[in-house]
């Protein structure tokens, strides 16, 4: 193996087509992201068949841009990596098919990567990860607490029982008339309002690390509908602030509980919702007060959403472990880490 380890990494699990070139697991040479948000905004959410069609249009353009920006040739590459799940099957299949074609054509090893591992390893671009660590993974499709005893080992210790946090944001956003994806705008509105509605903090009292957001979502929708019926107008800022406070409270509370149970050195905040300012601030404050020795690692916003670089960072660990796939690699839409 050459000194320079270069991984060409693919990510297409939802509505971003992304290809990156990552050097030695911690340096991004290119990270091209083609996002379909403008398309899916028409429908108020991701339409899987539309997403798959965009991925096919984009895939070779994105590969080409990634290789050119990184200024590398196929001879320089060490391996090809690809997200094979979890995600939308039609979307995943584009990345998987393209990655297999490149690996086959240039006789390169193929590394299958779990999308969630990718989200966690986005933090590797901030600083080296120190184990054991805990990751709070929050996105449109997932809300999980993941314990990592060592590199490349993942155990789910807390999971959502119903909606993912990001999903709740999008559904509430629809009621507030905020365009999809709603997280950023609700976060902005929340900072202008007060938590006046005291929405329920689900599962807060239960003795486990699981989440639930459907009760909160229903309480929010009922509050708005009730006000509509009696002709009362509610402050959107206060609604957003109250919703966000409830989500953040639950996430922080369960994370704190997990940190009590699992002594770790770092807490990684990962996934698209990691871009949320309210959540970042709350975790920072809680850690400073209650766990001053635990370091919070949050990837920059560009790396919290879906991207190829995070897949390349996770693949670096898999390459060390020589975890390769053969030509029959398939998409696994329901892929999940093992539950502890």
């Amino acid at each position, binding site marked *: 193996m050459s000194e320079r380890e270069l991984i060409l990494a693919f990510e297409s699990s939802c509505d971003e*087509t992304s290809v990156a070139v990552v050097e030695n697991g911690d340096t991004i040479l290119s990270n*091209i*992201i*083609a*996002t*379909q*948000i*403008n*398309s899916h905004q*028409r*429908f108020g959410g991701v*339409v899987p*068949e*539309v997403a*798959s*069609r*965009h991925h*096919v*249009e*984009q*895939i*070779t*353009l994105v*590969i*080409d*841009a990634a290789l050119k920006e990184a200024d590398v040739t*196929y001879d320089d590459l060490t391996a090809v990596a690809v997200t094979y799940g979890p995600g939308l*099957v*039609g979307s995943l*299949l*584009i990345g*998987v*098919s*393209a990655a*297999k*074609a*490149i690996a*086959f*054509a*240039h006789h390169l090893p193929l590394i299958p990567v779990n999308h969630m591992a990718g989200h966690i390893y986005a933090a590797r671009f901030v600083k080296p990860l120190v184990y054991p660590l805990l990751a709070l993974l929050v996105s449109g499709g997932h809300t999980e607490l993941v314990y990592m005893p060592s590199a490349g080992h993942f155990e789910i210790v807390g999971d959502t029982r119903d909606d993912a946090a990001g999903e709740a944001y999008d559904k509430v956003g629809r009621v507030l008339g905020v365009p999809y994806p709603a997280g950023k705008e609700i976060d902005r509105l929340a900072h202008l309002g007060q938590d006046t509605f005291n929405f329920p903090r689900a599962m807060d009292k239960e003795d486990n690390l699981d989440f639930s957001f459907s009760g909160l979502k229903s309480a929010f929708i009922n509050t708005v509908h009730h006000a509509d019926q009696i002709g009362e107008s509610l402050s959107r800022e206060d609604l957003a602030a109250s919703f966000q406070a409830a989500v953040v409270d639950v996430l922080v509370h369960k994370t704190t509980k997990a940190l009590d149970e699992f002594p770790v050195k770092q807490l990684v905040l990962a996934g698209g919702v990691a871009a949320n300012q309210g959540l970042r601030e709350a975790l920072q404050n809680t850690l400073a007060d209650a766990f001053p020795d635990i370091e919070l690692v949050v990837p920059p916003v*560009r790396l919290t959403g879906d991207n190829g670089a995070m897949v390349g960072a996770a693949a670096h660990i898999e390459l060390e472990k020589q975890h390769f796939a*053969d*030509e*029959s*690699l*398939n*998409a696994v839409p329901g892929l999940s880490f093992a539950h502890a």
Partner: protein
Amino acid sequence: MNILALETSNQAMSVAVMADLEVLAEMTLNRKRTHSEQLMPTIDTLLQQSGLTVEDLNRIVVADGPGSYTGVRIAVTTGKTLAYTLGIDLVGVSSLAVLAANIRDTSAVIVPVMDARRQNVFAGGYQWQAGQLINVLADQHTSLTQLLTALKLLQQPVIFVGPDAPKFQQDIFATLGNLAHIADPISQLPQASRAGELGMTVQPVSVFDFVPRYLRLTEAETNWLKTHDERGHRPYVEKV
């Protein structure tokens, strides 16, 4: 010219390696297994059996639809990525034409059909003229009734081909009577070598513009367009 031809539009998957019109190796699988699992191993095996390496390929021919959206995308994505990364020619041919090309030595109108559900079909009309397979009725997504009505007007013998053809035979014979024929079971299966044959002389296309021949907008887009104007929109996909 060494050609790799791929067809994954429906349940059957077919791959061929050819040196011009000579088929070096071909495999057609017709069991319900995922094309994604089988396609690349099959390409690898057939190249080895042909005594070729991937570097020996000059052209990729893909049956680019219509058909199962997910199925078509497997061959299209694999084919366009291979052509891009190897720097070789890429050609797309209609998956309906590939089926039609199974029927030889006839002057009848050949009608490949695929079930598109809810009494709809993907279908086209083809005819051999001076040794060339000519498209005489454009590939389209249409109702079975409309298709049969249009064919009846031709007052010509029609041969239906495709794995779904037999399931429509009652309606076919009711409308067309003894002008209609259904191809034999073996001819119903697509063969990648027929795609290779059709794609051998076609001008290559740009890999970056190559997308499946869906012949149908998604339901979400169709509904959206009923109440929206598509002109002047922001690009649906943007690099960020």
